């Protein structure tokens, strides 16, 4: 990849004692006609330069909403950020005026989405769309923007980039469209890349190509990445750390290896046990009973207790706090240690 023309990244703007990006005790509600849905209930996580944090969760767990809050692209209303901080390079983004957030969006923190076909504009050629950012934000001339667009398309390994500049999104395959979107996200050389289910719509062989590309970019450009996904396989392949979300909370947070070896939250354990494995044949799959909660009526105490095999009376009564298990590992479970040490379940 080194042959590609990418300007060296300037020294990272991280303050000496802080994290590059930090979400602190974030609370978000959706106020709808039917009531208030508590979508994010005290989420905290951080990201350091060059690392990949996976945020894992099922639909409705709040993983994408958190990302949208970081980007500042949440629809408000119906969404309402009731409390919390999102600090980037020492500044609280939520307190900034929109004009200053615009400066950060795309330039410092960029995002790629699941569905490239609907994220790209169908009536403009892709070269124009990649170049638009460069012309608008960096004031590049059309010729320069065009040249840089080709460089970016080369960087994301789109074959014959110069010839494909004038093609429209529908003329690209799914994998190539995803590359175009990654090229757009990289145009401003962001420090943080948020990838929201970047490979969910793709076939496995193409998924492997895109995950490789993201890993290369991270290594070459030292970009930090938040990978939002529901796929435990993808996480195991690329992430350094993982935050597992359930009902708008982070229920477990650990480095990837420890988490897969010995999950310390019953929900994580249930998820890991319920996926069929490529290297194992049939038999009955273990399941997590019941359904994820309605966010307008989150159960008392621990939100997972109605589905949890470890649940006791205390889980119904008391909201569990993050239990620190050493090595920066936390689990929001009253019985975190028992769950971690229980290899049978």
């Amino acid at each position, binding site marked *: 990849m080194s042959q590609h023309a990418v300007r060296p990244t300037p020294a990272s703007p991280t303050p000496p004692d802080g994290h590059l990006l930090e979400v602190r005790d974030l609370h978000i509600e959706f106020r709808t006609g039917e009531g208030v849905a508590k979508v994010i209930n005290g989420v905290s996580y951080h990201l350091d330069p060059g690392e990949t944090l996976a945020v894992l969760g099922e639909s409705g767990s709040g993983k994408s909403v958190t990302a949208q809050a970081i980007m500042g692209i949440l629809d408000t209303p119906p969404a309402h950020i009731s409390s919390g901080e999102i600090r980037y390079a020492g500044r609280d983004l939520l307190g900034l005026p929109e004009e200053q957030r615009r400066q950060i969006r795309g330039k410092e923190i960029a995002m790629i989405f699941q569905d490239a076909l609907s994220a790209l504009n169908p009536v403009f050629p892709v070269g124009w769309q990649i170049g638009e950012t460069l012309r608008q934000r960096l004031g590049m001339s059309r010729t320069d923007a065009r040249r840089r667009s080709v460089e970016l398309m080369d960087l994301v390994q789109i074959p014959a980039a110069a010839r494909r500049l004038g093609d429209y999104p529908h003329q690209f395959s799914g994998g190539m469209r995803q590359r175009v979107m990654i090229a757009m996200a990289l145009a401003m050389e962001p420090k943080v890349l948020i990838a929201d289910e970047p490979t969910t719509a793709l*076939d496995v062989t193409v998924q492997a*190509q895109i995950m490789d590309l993201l890993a290369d970019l991270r290594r070459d450009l030292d970009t930090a990445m938040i990978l939002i996904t*529901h796929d435990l396989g993808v996480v195991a392949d690329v992430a350094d750390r993982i935050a597992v979300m359930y009902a708008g909370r982070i229920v477990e947070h650990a480095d990837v290896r420890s988490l897969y070896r010995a999950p310390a939250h019953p929900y994580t354990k249930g998820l890991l046990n319920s*996926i069929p494995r490529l290297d194992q044949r049939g038999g*009955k799959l273990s399941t997590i009973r019941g359904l994820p909660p309605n966010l307008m009526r989150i159960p008392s105490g621990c939100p997972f207790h109605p589905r949890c095999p470890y649940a006791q009376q205390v889980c119904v009564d008391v909201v569990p706090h993050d239990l620190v298990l050493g090595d920066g590992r936390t689990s929001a479970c009253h019985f975190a240690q028992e769950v971690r040490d229980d290899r049978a379940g």
Partner: protein
Amino acid sequence: MTAPASPTTVRGETLLDVDHVVKHFPITQGVVFKKKTGAVKAVDGVSFQLRRGETLGIVGESGCGKSTLARLLMRLEKPTAGRATLAGRDLFAASGGELRRIRRNMQMVMQDPYTSLNPRMTVGDIIGEPFEIHPEATPKGSRQRRVQELLDVVGLNPEHINRYPHQFSGGQRQRIGIARALALRPEVIVCDEPVSALDVSIQAQVINLLEELQDELGLSYIFIAHDLSVVRHISDRIAVMYLGRIVEIGTEDEIYDRATHPYTQALLSAAPVPDPDAREHRSIIRLRGDVPSPADPPSGCHFRTRCWKAQDICATQDPQAVPRAADPHPSACHFAEVRPGR
């Protein structure tokens, strides 16, 4: 002759026999005078057998023709060529009453539980609708009871018979779709990506349900999916499709442990493994480029443009899915060999 699901024949004999089925969709040009200028070769000569009580998994990437194949078997599309028989009856030649009898015996579960259920019908009407088309299946008086029985079988509350689809979650809706497919007591169920739209924790529940139903009712499944782990879990035999053809077919062990076709090997190697410790010693085969257009597939072996083993013979001679020296299961590769070190 319309005996419901009673195993009149021995377990293990061939129930569905598909022989060189072809489906080409014409590409036309012109508005008034349509001229055929080409064809999308969605399914291009597919043969396989499904035995009683067995699950045949069909895997492949988007555009490989697996869903078109399902639609052909359900007679939702007319094949361009080929033959298929279900329990001895000619599937593609049948019409009228004969077709209705065949359809009763083969039902389908769709991928998307959100769009495959009519939002204006109650669950009872949805599951009971097959009885309107096949009144002989269950006498009118006992239909409500049969629908409640079906709800119970798929793990839903029989009292919810008057609810509407939007009152159920995704996993529950897929159970409704399964109940509808079971209503006529078919012998074969074609499942087209039945768990792809579901969350991980719900997926396992639906997979377990499908397996329980198979054991209880002796069903045969054609299970179409792109998730290789799910397919391995549920299938007895697996067919791997690429650009309209079956490139390899065999038992679950033969495909997952002794695959001889390069495409199967690449597909398996690319599937993410939920084990961070496997990261270092996994060797992923990186395929070049994208799947070619089915309107203009490469000559000879369809996979040769992306294959690292391709030689001149691959462009000129179409490899047949036949037993190979490397392993006795059928593989459509001139250079079939088991990948070392797996």
